[in-house]
């Protein structure tokens, strides 16, 4: 146990970096994912095709491959990063965006067609239909899965630790190597900090799910 308390500053630094990676990638992924979802339901075939291919490929790519590409292959191709955090954020956000796109799309599609038809038939224009009818309903279906995706993002950011970014997992690994006699304590400490993020988010997800549940 002493190992954990002695290295608390390191844990804290790693925790903050994990938080930073997750937050930045999360915001980028939310924006990118929503754009992809919009492209996916758009009437323009080219955008639809692009979004479909992107989501299909990225969803089926192991995260480690995405990281390997961003952190090891890209620099070889002449894309140099000042910090490896940038590579980690690229990998995490492009990967997560595919899942967000799917969640948002299925949320929009879960709104019955009759809702939009009724709105149009009373004379609403496209913007009104979207803002007043579709999005408020879609949001309820979308938010709980989005929180689950963000939980997964926090956990996935641990892969960055293996690609030259010193976040929680990276420090955990370093400490485990330095303290061969207390590996279990060191890694349990790391796990504790992850749970500090994932468990509250999980509770939030199930609370929101119960709160916004609608019977259709």
């Amino acid at each position: 146990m002493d190992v954990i308390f002695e290295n608390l500053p390191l844990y804290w630094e790693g925790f903050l970096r994990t938080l930073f990676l997750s937050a930045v990638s999360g915001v980028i992924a939310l924006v990118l994912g929503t754009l992809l979802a919009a492209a996916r339901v758009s009437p323009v075939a080219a955008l639809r095709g692009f979004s479909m291919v992107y989501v299909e490929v990225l969803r089926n790519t192991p995260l480690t491959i995405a990281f390997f590409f961003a952190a090891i292959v890209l620099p070889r191709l002449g894309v140099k990063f000042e910090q490896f955090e940038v590579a980690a954020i690229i990998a995490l956000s492009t990967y997560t965006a595919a899942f967000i796109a799917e969640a948002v799309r299925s949320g929009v599609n879960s709104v019955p067609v009759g809702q939009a038809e009724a709105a149009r038939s009373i004379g609403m224009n496209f913007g009104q239909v979207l803002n007043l009818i579709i999005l408020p309903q879609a949001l309820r279906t979308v938010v709980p899965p989005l929180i689950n995706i963000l939980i997964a993002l926090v956990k996935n950011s641990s892969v960055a630790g293996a690609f030259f970014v010193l976040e929680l997992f990276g420090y955990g690994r370093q400490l485990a190597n330095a303290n061969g006699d207390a590996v279990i304590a060191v890694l349990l400490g790391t796990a504790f900090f992850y749970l500090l993020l994932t468990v509250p988010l999980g509770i939030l997800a199930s609370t929101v799910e119960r709160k916004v549940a609608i019977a259709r």
Partner: protein
Amino acid sequence: MSSVLYDVPGPKARRIYLIGSIVGSLLILGLLAWIVMTLAQQGIFEGRRWQIFTRADVWTLLGNGLGATLSAAAIAAVIAFPLGLVLCLLRISDAAAIRIPVRVVLEFLRGMPVVLMMLFILLGFGTSPFIAVVTGLVLYNSAVFAEIIRAGIQSLPRGQREAGLAIGLTSFKSRMLIELPQAIRRMMPSLVAQMVVLLKDTSLGYIVAYGELLRAVQVMADFLGTQFLFPIFFVAAAIYIAINILVSRIAVWIERRGSRKAAGGVAKAEPEKANAPVP
């Protein structure tokens, strides 16, 4: 493509969509061309770099890596599923003394990064990388399977269990004979989708030095020279993605088949309700 958002397009709208499609395609083609040009400037398309794929040993190494990936995934899946089933039964047990501890354990397992579990087993118990990868995958995925099956059981009409108990089945028998078969059937798409996640997660073995496909890429690039990194990586990534897409397609196919059969009388799962797999 029918969407909630749009009316059926008239001639004018169709013309606009067509123009949009052409402009969009040009943009995407331009982007692709730019990527290809940039890669070409790096000399990626020199035949010399791709000639290594005429060598048998390169394919042997890739094959070994793929074999390691698939065997870890297969073994983990075969152990994780029954374990998940047991955990699910314990999780919904009538006895609070069983239910609550199991719930805590499941939350713990689901809240931790898989790679941390692998490292924990590798260093904490001094096992081989293979055992570490398989155990990490089993622990995490059995917890997820348990949650998926539980969601399936809870989505059944209450009457199913009540009827089972009313005709004199014990609680356990009602679970095994009435609820589980329906729940598993309902959740089949989610379960197969989770298999894809499991397969993808074997690539985390790279981090704990398990000789899977990505590790094979790294080893070959170190051994043959870094100019071959991109070709080898490209082929390995393509193999990975192709396999995953194949398994995902099976999930979609099962889902379609399931919903067609459901019309015939088996309890029907709500559409779009099947929990989307999480990265």
